[in-house]
């Protein structure tokens, strides 16, 4: 009988141990799903939930605070995720918190991450809709990577082609195998260096000139920079302009005189024609002029004689004194 009781006790312990383990496991799993604590509901809307499903975890700032309750299709571009959040987190989650869908580790389940917004907002209420941020899609990233790979392949093939062309180029290989080339190149470089030095020197000198011009030194500087000289030059130019205008008038008058002369020369009865073309007239004129000269000389002699005449001598002395004063 005692043995039977002992067996019954052993069986009871065995069964109760099993049931306790079952209850513990159910409690631990249920606790994870917020089954044994009070919770409230929050919502978030995404364009793509990347395989998120009911039961996935919800984390607030990396701490597990709830689970996904439902994933609903609202329309062709909007998926609503209904989350059951632990009541304890209500006093921390604000309406402007941002929600994303991520992964638990590299290969883990999907998870909804709620990130606090640095800007303080109002605390959430039951059934509030949180802001969402669409994460970089791995598919898009792979697509970009594929394009990059394609481009890399094209570049590689073109590089191969270039290398082939280089290898098959006799000119290039002749250049590469030319032993005198380095010395020539070195000499050329020395020449280039020397030219560059000269050029630098010239540039420096040019700079000095430019500086001088800026400073108003030299004729160019005076012209370009000295405002007084610029005024003088301007006036000179004006004068030149005026002189040119006057010269033009003079030339016109000369032209008219020349035309008069021309007409005079053309007239055989005129004086000019006789003066320039009639030799007898010229001879007569020459004789007349000789006569005038002779007459003038005789007149001068007469005048000299008058100076020595006692009647006029006083007058001439008076005139000489006036001149001397």
């Amino acid at each position, binding site marked *: 009988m005692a043995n039977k009781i002992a067996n019954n006790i052993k069986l009871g312990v065995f069964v109760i*141990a099993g049931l306790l*383990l079952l209850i513990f496991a159910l409690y631990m*799993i249920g606790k994870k799903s917020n089954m044994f604590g009070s919770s409230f509901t929050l919502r978030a809307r995404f364009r793509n939930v990347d395989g998120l499903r009911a039961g996935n975890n919800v984390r607030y700032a990396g701490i597990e605070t709830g689970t996904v309750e439902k994933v609903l299709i609202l329309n062709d571009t909007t998926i609503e995720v209904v989350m059951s959040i632990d009541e304890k987190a209500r006093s921390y989650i604000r309406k402007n918190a941002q929600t994303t869908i991520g992964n638990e580790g590299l290969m883990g389940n999907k998870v909804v991450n709620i990130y606090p917004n640095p800007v303080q907002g109002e605390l959430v209420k039951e059934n509030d809709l949180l802001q969402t941020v669409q994460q970089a899609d791995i598919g898009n990233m792979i697509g970009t990577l594929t394009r990059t790979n394609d481009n890399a392949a094209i570049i590689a093939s073109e590089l191969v082609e270039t290398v082939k062309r280089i290898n098959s180029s006799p000119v290039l290989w002749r250049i590469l195998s030319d032993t005198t080339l380095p010395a020539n190149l070195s000499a050329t470089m020395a020449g280039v260096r020397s030219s560059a030095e000269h050029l630098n020197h010239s540039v420096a000198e040019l700079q000095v000139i430019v500086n001088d011009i800026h400073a108003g030194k030299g004729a160019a500087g005076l012209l370009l920079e000295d405002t007084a000289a610029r005024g003088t030059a301007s006036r000179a130019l004006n004068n030149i302009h005026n002189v040119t205008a006057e010269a033009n008038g003079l030339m016109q008058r000369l032209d008219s005189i020349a035309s008069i002369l021309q007409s005079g020369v053309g007239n055989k009865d005129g004086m000019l024609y006789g003066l320039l073309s009639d030799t007898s007239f010229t001879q007569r004129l020459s004789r007349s002029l000789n006569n005038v000269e002779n007459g003038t000389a005789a007149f001068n002699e007469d005048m000299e004689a008058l100076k020595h005449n006692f009647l006029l001598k006083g007058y001439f002395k008076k005139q000489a004194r006036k001149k001397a004063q």
Partner: protein
Amino acid sequence: MKPNKPAKQLQAFFDEAGRIARFTAWYFRQAIRPRYEFRELIRQCFIIGYQSLGLVVLTGFIMGLVLTMQLRPTLVDYGVESQIPAMVAIAVVREVGPVITALIFAGKIGSSIGAELGSMRVTEQIDAMEVSGTNPYKYLVVTRVTAATLMLPILVLLSDTISLYGAYLGVNIKTVTSANLFIWQVFDVLDFTDLMPAFIKTFFFGFAVGMIGCYKGYNSTRGTEGVGRSANSAVVLSSVMIFIIDLLVVQVTDIMGFN
């Protein structure tokens, strides 16, 4: 015309299936009808459940430890050594724990029931019970099948726990993981959809092992040789049935979206 051998075998198979189905239907009819053999049921629970605990615990512990040690090199190669508790937990709770424990259970209890009832049949003790007015089916079969059905889930829960303890020791052979972190990692990946289908299918495993053991023993023939044959065939058929039920449960849970 004399039927050829495959046709004979097929006929025998369907005959056996029909007999088992009738035997099973008889169990339900007898189980719900009074008078209930509670004392015998408790005794059978002790024998079938408690006395199998040592074997189940030992195999469960080794199973968890070995699984962890076998998984480690591959997971280390992938750099996910920290996922060992999660992977072992999923493997043990969903599949390995229930199936291995059920197979051990079939080996021990299936053969035991088959041999016990077979020997009672060949020694005409069952016939004597019928003559004395005791319902042998209710007393021998219903109690054993019910005990097997109820005890295997508890054995599986204990086996799973011991397996996870073995896994915990296995994890701590090469690295140091606190018990707290290990438990958190285990329950972090487990869900009701992992635990409940696995737990429910163990009732079917237990029922199948008890029913096949009882059927083979109850219908044992040809003397002591028949007893050995009954015990052997009970174990073989129970083991096959465990895998068939497992397959069906996986399909059903998959259809219901629990996977």
